[in-house]
């Protein structure tokens, strides 16, 4: 026991002796773990957020396919669908995209009925009013009372008075929204009477969703029902970090680090080889030397691991992932502020541990093993 403590002590003094080399290694290594943990935390949190929020999205969305493309849905489909047992309600949705040439942003324009008006403390929306997401408000420099101008299919610019701005805390849902009254959006987009963009279906019993979707497809062959589970699964695979190309953007950095680490950690310097020889000559066993290297690697990689995960956590959950945001954003003009619910699973931390600490230990211990096994005489001579 004492022996291990002394060897640990000597290993640590070794870390201190090669201060700059080890510090550089620690910094590079922590940085790598910081990047990987940031991606891991961010994608996981987004996934959980989607899972939680989209649980209350409509059970089934029904689209219409015409000539292989989306087409407007006849509103009288509602009657056919409501007649299916288990369906509580079906209602048309009116929404569309609007490209704003001034800001270069794409808005999602959404129509609401007064009866299901979303904002508390606000009974209704005037036909000429709109509600906008915080992203729209920021890019267009629009505040409550200002006018949002959109050009209709006829080429006529139509102003809408901003009656309210969604708070940033909801920006993950509302960032690019422009909410209009249902009549207004129908008029603005010139959606023909008797048609809607798609239909949403409410189902009483979740276990019946799939059968009902099937029935809809049977009754209306040109329809395409999308169930909520499918939506959730879309998001589940969306933030699957293994397929995340963000990671691939850092592969360059990753490679650079491994070359660096390979060089610094695996190739023993002549000085280190000599020291191993001296230690062996004065009575250290190969196992003692391996133990020393083990402690060295363990301390260094645990320090890097902890530093990396701590900074990753702070970066993602306290600062809103500013460094990743620019990478994730891509061509999006509107991007929500990533105020995420801090959810971390022990599993993630373990994955990170095994992806980082274990290979490092292996890579550092292997070459010393070779040096420790040879006769001390040869090690000292060379």
């Amino acid at each position, binding site marked *: 026991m004492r022996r291990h403590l002394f060897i640990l002590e000597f290993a640590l003094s070794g870390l201190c002796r090669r201060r700059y080399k080890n510090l550089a290694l620690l910094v590079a290594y922590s940085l790598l773990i910081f990047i990987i943990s940031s991606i891991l935390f961010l994608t996981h949190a987004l996934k959980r957020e989607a899972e939680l*929020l*989209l649980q209350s999205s409509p059970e089934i969305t029904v689209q219409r396919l015409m000539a292989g493309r989306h087409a407007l849905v006849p509103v009288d489909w509602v009657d056919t669908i409501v007649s299916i047992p288990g369906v509580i309600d079906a209602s048309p949705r009116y929404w569309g995209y609007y490209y704003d040439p001034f800001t270069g942003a794409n808005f999602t324009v959404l129509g609401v009925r007064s009866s299901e008006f979303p904002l508390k403390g606000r009974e209704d929306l005037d036909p000429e009013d709109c509600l906008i997401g915080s992203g729209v408000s920021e890019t267009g420099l629009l505040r409550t009372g200002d006018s949002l101008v959109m050009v209709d299919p006829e080429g006529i610019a139509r102003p809408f008075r901003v009656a309210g701005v969604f708070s940033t805390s909801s920006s993950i849902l509302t960032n690019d929204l422009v909410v209009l009254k249902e009549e207004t959006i129908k008029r603005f987009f010139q959606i023909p009477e008797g048609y809607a963009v798609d239909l949403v279906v409410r189902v009483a019993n979740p276990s019946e969703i799939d059968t009902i979707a*099937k029935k809809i497809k049977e009754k209306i062959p040109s329809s395409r029902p999308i169930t909520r589970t499918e939506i959730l699964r879309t998001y589940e695979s969306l933030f699957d970090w293994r*397929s995340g190309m963000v990671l691939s953007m850092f592969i360059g950095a990753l490679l650079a680090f491994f070359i660096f680490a390979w060089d610094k950690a695996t190739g023993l310097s002549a000085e280190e080889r000599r020291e191993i020889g001296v230690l062996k000559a004065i009575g250290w066993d190969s196992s003692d030397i391996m133990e020393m290297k083990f402690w060295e690697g363990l301390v260094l990689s645990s320090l890097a691991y902890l530093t990396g995960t701590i900074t990753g956590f702070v970066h993602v959950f306290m600062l809103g992932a500013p460094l990743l945001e620019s990478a994730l954003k891509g061509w999006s003009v509107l991007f929500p502020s990533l105020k995420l619910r801090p959810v971390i699973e022990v599993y993630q931390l373990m994955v990170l541990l095994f992806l980082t600490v274990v290979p490092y230990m292996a890579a550092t211990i292997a070459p010393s093993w070779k040096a420790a096994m040879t006769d001390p005489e040869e090690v000292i001579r060379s």
Partner: protein
Amino acid sequence: MKYRRFLILLITESLILLGLLLWGHYRGQTEFVRLTGLKDLVTSLMLTDLSIWTEARYTRHPSQTDLFSAFQDCPGCLEHFPSGSIVSVPPHLRRPEEIP
């Protein structure tokens, strides 16, 4: 002895991490309340997607998209990066179409 210093450093960092996780747990609960509020918004606006990437239809509404959605906006369009590579084909499109 040096090992004390390193031990203190490691323990401090572990405690910070633990503290952060606890903070996260606590925050997670208050955030849960906020998100539950947002769920009402999802219900009343009948939303099906998060508003993360807005540059293309298939990244804005991945759940509503077409199978041929990449390059959909115009034939010469570039694939959108990185969103286009993070967003994958939704399951309802992968399921074989049943022939009636």
